[in-house]
Every structure is written in structure tokens, then in C-alpha cells.
């Protein structure tokens, strides 16, 4: 295309240029001709333009965050309701805030389910007792509050060019301990000082048993 030897061509600013001349083709023109090969040297060069490269980061990325959960506990029945949930995460530079917030919402919903509802329970013979949604409690819309999600604290990651960090699991990791700690704190403040731990899921029956244990 440029009628020049390979050694005379330099790639700069998205253009292939023959050194010392004004002859140049853009990256787009080169790519187009690779797929429309009517004057391509088909005997020596296969049409198409494909390349794969791998980026090997120098280290993992470490997001950091703090999650706050407010619950109400009905001590007569053990029922827990999540009143509010606030997440503050440092994900480094955020490319698309909407999908990052959605990812956190989904993770927190999953974490609330894990903390309060979901239970894979077997009997002594190994029979699964929670084998259908009649007994396996999935979180539903009414089980979760509106979330407040903040990612205004930005500490750019130092070992990748975009300065980004992972956000996929943050919500699911931060929420279960926030929910369970909120329940324990509520019970302590309510005068049930002996309750220091409840296994997940923190079901109404388990909360009631802990209060009356």
C-alpha cells in the first residue's frame, strides 16, 4: 500500500508513515484493506487482521470499603428488617459509575439474603430439606431497602494503567457481616446483653432462640 520496505515505515499517532516522506496510511485504512483484499499479496499474506495480547498485572487490585447497616428486630418474633444500607467503596478510577453501582446493589442483595434468609439444610440422612423455593428462602424486593452507594473516595490503583480496582464482589463481601453485626448490636442495645453471636442465616427462629437462650 505504501510501496516501501518494512524497515522504512514507522507507526506514529495512529498512522503508518514512510520515513522522510508524506506518504502515510491511517490504522483504519490498513485494517479496511486487510478485510477487502482485492490487491492483497494473497500468496504470501493471509487476509484479516487479528492479534491477541495479554496483560500481566504486577499485582492484584485491592478495593477498600466500609458498609453500614441499620436493622430493626422484633424481640417477640425474632423478625429482622433491614431499614437502611449504606456502602462506601474506593474502587480507584471508575469508568462506568452506573454498572459499578448496579454491581454493588446486586452484591448487597445477595449478602442480605445470605445473612438473613438463604439456607442449604440437610437432615441426618443427607436429605436436602431446602430443595425448592417452598423452603429455600431467596431474598425478594421487599426484603431489601433502597441502598445508598458512594464511590467518591478515589485512590487510583498504582500498578495498572487505568488506575482501576475490582468491584465485582465488594457488595457480597461487605454486607453479611454488616447485617449480622447490626442485629447483634440492636439486641445488645435492647438489653439482650447475653447475645454475642448468631449463626447465619439469622432467621426469626434463631434470633428468638438467641434472645431466649
Amino acid at each position, binding site marked *: 500500500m505504501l510501496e516501501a520496505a518494512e524497515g522504512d515505515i514507522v507507526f506514529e499517532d495512529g498512522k503508518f508513515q514512510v520515513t522522510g516522506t508524506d506518504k502515510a496510511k491511517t490504522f483504519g485504512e490498513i485494517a479496511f484493506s486487510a478485510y477487502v483484499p482485492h490487491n492483497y499479496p494473497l500468496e504470501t499474506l493471509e487476509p484479516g487482521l487479528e492479534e491477541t495480547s495479554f496483560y500481566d498485572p504486577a499485582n492484584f487490585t485491592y478495593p477498600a470499603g466500609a458498609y453500614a447497616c441499620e436493622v430493626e428486630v422484633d424481640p*417477640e*418474633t*425474632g*423478625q429482622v428488617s433491614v431499614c437502611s444500607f449504606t456502602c462506601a467503596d474506593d474502587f480507584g478510577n471508575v469508568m462506568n459509575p452506573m454498572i459499578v453501582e448496579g454491581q454493588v446493589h446486586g452484591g448487597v442483595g445477595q449478602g442480605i439474603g445470605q445473612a438473613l*434468609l438463604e*439456607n442449604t*439444610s440437610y437432615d441426618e440422612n443427607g436429605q436436602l*430439606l*431446602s430443595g425448592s*423455593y*417452598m*423452603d*429455600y*428462602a*431467596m431474598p425478594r424486593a421487599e426484603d431489601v431497602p433502597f441502598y445508598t452507594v458512594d464511590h467518591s473516595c478515589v485512590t487510583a490503583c498504582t500498578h495498572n494503567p487505568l488506575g482501576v480496582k475490582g468491584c465485582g464482589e465488594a457488595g457480597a463481601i461487605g454486607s453479611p457481616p454488616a447485617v449480622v453485626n447490626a442485629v447483634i448490636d440492636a439486641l445488645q442495645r435492647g438489653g439482650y446483653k447475653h447475645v454475642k453471636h448468631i449463626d447465619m442465616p439469622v*432467621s*426469626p*427462629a434463631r434470633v*428468638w*432462640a438467641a434472645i*431466649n437462650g
Partner: protein
Amino acid sequence: MYDFEFVKPSSIAEAAKALAADGAQALSGGQTLLPTMKQRLAAPGTLVSLTGIAEMQGVCLSDGGLHIGGATPHAVVAAQAKPHYPALAALAGGIGDPAVRNRGTIGGSIANNDPAACYPSAVLASGATVVTNKRKIAADDYFQGMFTTALEEGEFVIEVRFPIPQKAAYVKFNQPASRFALTGVFVAKFADGVRVAVTGASNDGVFRWAEAEAALSADFRAEAIAGLVVDGSDMISDLHGSGAYRANLVKVLTGRAVSAA
């Protein structure tokens, strides 16, 4: 699901005749029977639908009571019983979800007598009369234990007749997964006394809590049952709650129902 025949009679007499045949099974809203058939746990030869019989549909006031056709869906009861018997309407409006409430029927519910169903508590606490194609059965004689009723082969619920109490309320505590009643309590106050019926808690199905009835008949306040003790040793114990937990719910929910009535 196995192969079956389907008939939809338009009169009680035709339905009774169809149900007298070998392998015939009454179908109302199908909220329990159809899933059971889909799982191949039931294989009736002929399903006899009861939803095409005009006399078995609807809600009406008669002789000072509320008469509800056996094939009336929960959603219709929730809407039409509201001015006359709001506690019963609220119970119907709290069963399952909209799809269930538009298919499931009162007759189907009490014929199945699931230990966690809502309707049996209302029928028993109201002292209602269950009218079948053969006879009239008092609620106290109708419920005979988990999934067991006084209904005989070929007998089906045409109508349920509810006396209307002075005050009433139903309070249920949802099982976290299915949202059936983990325990539910219906309290009804009549001129001659209070009736309290409990669903979801007992291995024997819906039952009346006699001690609470006596205490509340003397003093219709939640405080009146404060000193009562409920024995949880014979109550349902499963992954959602022990017998002791259900016994606690019986007392808590009874108090709340009295306050709400």
C-alpha cells in the same frame, strides 16, 4: 404429569355424579393438586372441575351471615367480603400472591386442609358451617387433623357460611421461603364469647386454643392472655422453627390479633 380425563359440569348434581365414578378427583383452583400431579405424586383418572357451577361462586349476605361459594377465588373474597367481614377479606387478600389468589378457592383450601393454610383458621374461629353436596358440617366437626377433614368420598364443599363476629382479626407470621403461615391466629369475638383458632403450628392441623378463648371471653384485651403458657412439645418442628418457637408465636400473634380486632 400423567394422562387424565377432564370434565367441567355446570351443576352440583352433575358434579356429584361425575365424582361418583372410579378414579374421579375434584379440582377447584388446583393450587395444590396441579403441582402434585406435575410431580407425578398424584394420578387421578378424571378431573372434575368445580369452577363452572354458578351456585358455587360468589359472596352474599344471607340470614345475617356471609355465605361464600366453595369455588370462589381468594381475590373475590378479598374484594367482596370487605364491607361485611373485613378480617376474613384481609385473610383472603394475604394468601399467596395475585396469581394464587385469582385461582385458589376457599373450598379447595379447606378440602385440602393444609396445616399451614390460612382459611381453616377463619372457618374454625368463626364457627362457620361447611355446606357440602350431602350435608351441613359444623367447623368444629369438619377439621380432623393435618390434611384430614370430615369430607367423604364424592363429597365436596358447595358453600361456607360464616357468622359475622362483632370483632375479629387474623395475624400470620410468614414462613420465610414459602410465605405460608409459619403460624397464624384468627381471633373472633361474638356476643356469646371469643373463639381463637391457630393454623401452621400443630401436628394435628388447625386447632382452637381453649385457654385463650376463656381468658378473652372474660376480658378482650391482649393483656388477658399474658399469664397463659402454650405447650410446644407437640407442635411442628422444622428448619424454619422449633415447636417452642411456634408455641411462642401462638401467644404473640393471639395478642396482636386481639389488639388489631
